[in-house]
């Protein structure tokens, strides 16, 4: 090959390399940036007085004097809205029956839009569901609801041969000539005074339990459940994995059985996680009866089996990487084989073993499929350590899925879902970072 061709090949390879790195970085950015920006919104956001009311009533947090003065000042502006509504209700009674019927339906829409914005109106009975007890707690949601109040969405289906197009009609026009027409500009101009938006830092999102299936409150039970499951899995998988790796590398005689075992282990590493989930349900819960129903322990055992092959492989590689001279030196000093493994080889292999273990820990924290049937529930309180043998737990990975697809009001609580995603990504990142730090420290110590 002449030098010219080689240079061209070399350059084009560099270009492809750089290109793929850029593509990867962009992909990462597309994934991470929305997660971070939206996820942070669960903790840092512009909260309204309704949020502070909710915190005080549901969590007994906040300063009651400050709150009552805020409520008083917002009520001054709200009372006018309520007066306009009752005024129109009276006017409605005086209308001719036909007109009354026409306005009644439109008025019902306005009333429920105001309810959605400001919470229950005076005279309404207190709702049972916490989600209806308060108005909008987040300012950006309040602005959306304001739009719903000011404009009615209609669909233009004048042409039956194509799909309709959406357009918005100002509700104020529909009430032209009645007393209610004043309500719309009033609410628009005074919404800030009625809801008192203020920059809010809600750390409770991390430390509180959820209220009314994640409408309010935080995700502590999910975070705790994730830790329980991941650490529980590690408690089972780590000792087993290291022992197996020692057996494979030090004791097993090369032969048919050994190579079968190894390839079985490699195959197990490639089994889809849902298979482990079904296995966990069938074996640990239905056959072994480790618990009566779903429980943390059943989930942890299932996850342990899932991560076991990875831990065995990492430990094997780490043990094999220990220089032969260490072993020879130890044996030549008269040490036994077992003593050599325990005092020389395992400590030297520890950084590698730990790295594998912590990466598996991250995987155990993030997996959904194995815990669907063995450990995860969509609603449940935080559980104590004593309950891991009998109780299931909510966990981040499963609840993210639940909120994305099954929740009846998924579109209203996107911020909670993003917050959960950010929490999970941060936990996994933290675990991986700690693996790097741990590894660095141990290798430094070993080098002396």
């Amino acid at each position, binding site marked *: 090959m002449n030098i010219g061709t080689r240079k061209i090949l070399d350059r084009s390879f560099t270009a492809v390399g750089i290109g793929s790195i850029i593509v990867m970085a962009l992909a990462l950015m597309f994934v991470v940036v929305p997660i971070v920006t939206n996820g942070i919104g669960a903790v840092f956001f512009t909260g309204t007085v309704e949020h502070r009311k909710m915190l005080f009533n549901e969590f007994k947090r906040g300063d009651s004097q400050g709150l009552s003065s805020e409520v008083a000042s917002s009520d001054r502006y709200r009372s006018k809205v309520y007066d306009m509504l009752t005024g129109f209700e009276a006017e409605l009674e005086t209308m001719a029956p036909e007109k009354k019927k026409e306005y009644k339906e439109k008025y019902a829409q306005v009333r429920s839009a105001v309810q959605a914005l400001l919470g229950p109106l005076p005279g309404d009975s207190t709702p049972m569901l916490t989600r209806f007890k308060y108005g909008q707690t987040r300012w950006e949601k309040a602005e959306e609801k304001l739009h719903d109040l000011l404009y009615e969405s209609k669909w233009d289906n004048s042409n039956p041969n194509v799909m309709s*197009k959406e357009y918005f009609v100002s509700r104020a026009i529909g009430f032209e000539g009645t007393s209610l027409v004043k309500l719309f500009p009033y609410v628009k101009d005074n919404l800030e005074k009625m809801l008192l938006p203020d920059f809010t830092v809600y750390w409770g999102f991390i430390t509180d339990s959820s209220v009314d299936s994640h409408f309010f409150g935080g995700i502590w039970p999910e975070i705790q459940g994730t830790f329980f499951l991941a650490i529980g899995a590690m408690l089972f998988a780590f000792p087993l994995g290291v022992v197996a790796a020692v057996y494979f590398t030090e004791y097993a005689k090369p032969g048919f059985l050994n190579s079968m075992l190894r390839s079985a282990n490699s195959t197990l590493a490639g089994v889809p996680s849902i298979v482990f989930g079904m296995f966990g349900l069938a074996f640990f819960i239905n056959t072994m009866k480790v618990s009566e129903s779903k429980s943390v322990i059943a989930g942890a055992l299932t996850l342990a089996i899932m991560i076991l092959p990875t831990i065995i492989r990492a430990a094997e590689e780490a043990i094999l990487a220990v220089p032969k001279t260490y072993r020879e030196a130890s044996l030549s000093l008269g040490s036994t084989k077992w003593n050599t493994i325990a005092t020389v080889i395992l400590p030297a292999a520890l950084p590698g073993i730990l790295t594998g273990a912590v990466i598996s820990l991250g995987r155990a924290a993030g997996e959904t499929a194995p815990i669907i049937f063995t450990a995860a529930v969509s609603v449940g309180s935080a559980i*104590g350590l004593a309950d891991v043998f009998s109780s299931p737990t909510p966990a981040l990975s499963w609840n993210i899925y639940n909120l994305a697809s099954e929740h009846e009001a998924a579109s209203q609580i996107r911020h909670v879902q993003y917050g959960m995603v950010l929490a999970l990504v941060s936990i996994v990142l933290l675990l991986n970072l700690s693996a790097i730090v741990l590894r660095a420290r141990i290798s430094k110590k070993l080098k002396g």
Partner: protein
Amino acid sequence: MIKKILLFVTLLALTVTATGIAAVNTIVLDGSTTVGPVAKTFAAYFSKKYGIRVTVSESGSGNGAKSLINGSCTIATMSRAMKDAEIAAARKKGVNPVASVVALDGLAMVVHPANPVRSLTKAQISSIYRGTITNWREVGGPNTRIVVIQRESNSGTEESFKDLVIGKGVQITGSAETQSSNGSVKSRVSTTLSAIGFLGHGFVDGSVKVIAVNGILPTVATVKNGSYPVSRPLYFYTNGQPSGPVKQFIDLPKTVEGKRMITELGFINR
């Protein structure tokens, strides 16, 4: 180093134990995603009022029945009645399933809000799902292919829909798309102009348009008096007659508070 890690783990364990409260006993609910909102709300209300832990999983009516048969849940939430085969399997294992109606639910047929079609007959819906009507033009809509959305085989909503609309044993068209929960049917329909799907009444919101079946829209009144043709009861199944806290939980739909929760969630009291 290892000592430090051990210390850290112990500390973590201790703090966690300190914050957690050991439960006396637990009521475990498993099953339908349609009953999910009611189950979750009842669970929160019940554990707050009586201090008994209630956990809720939403894995589908079929799974709820299986869990009850295997003895891994206290209450199976189901959006259809148990089938004979399931009852037989339960009896074999010494489980005696007892049904209790939670609420009524109108199965709403939903399309994208842009779809001009307002009403379909039961026969038309049946034809759409059997694959004999494939274009909206055939039912008075624009000239677009119909995207048919159904639920997974594990779903009680799917079974009820089959029983009530297209008849038992009739195959749904192979081109129908399968979604695994009410929520995902809703999000699929709200983002697909030419889609049709069915949802539990409690899941309907402004992002989709409910169409009338035989000219009747699902409302509290029409479902209650049975004039809406696609409605069904939702069930709690227990092993044997419930007693103690489980009975209290099962009886929540009969209390004033329970009735109000059901109404606020968009379901219909019996």
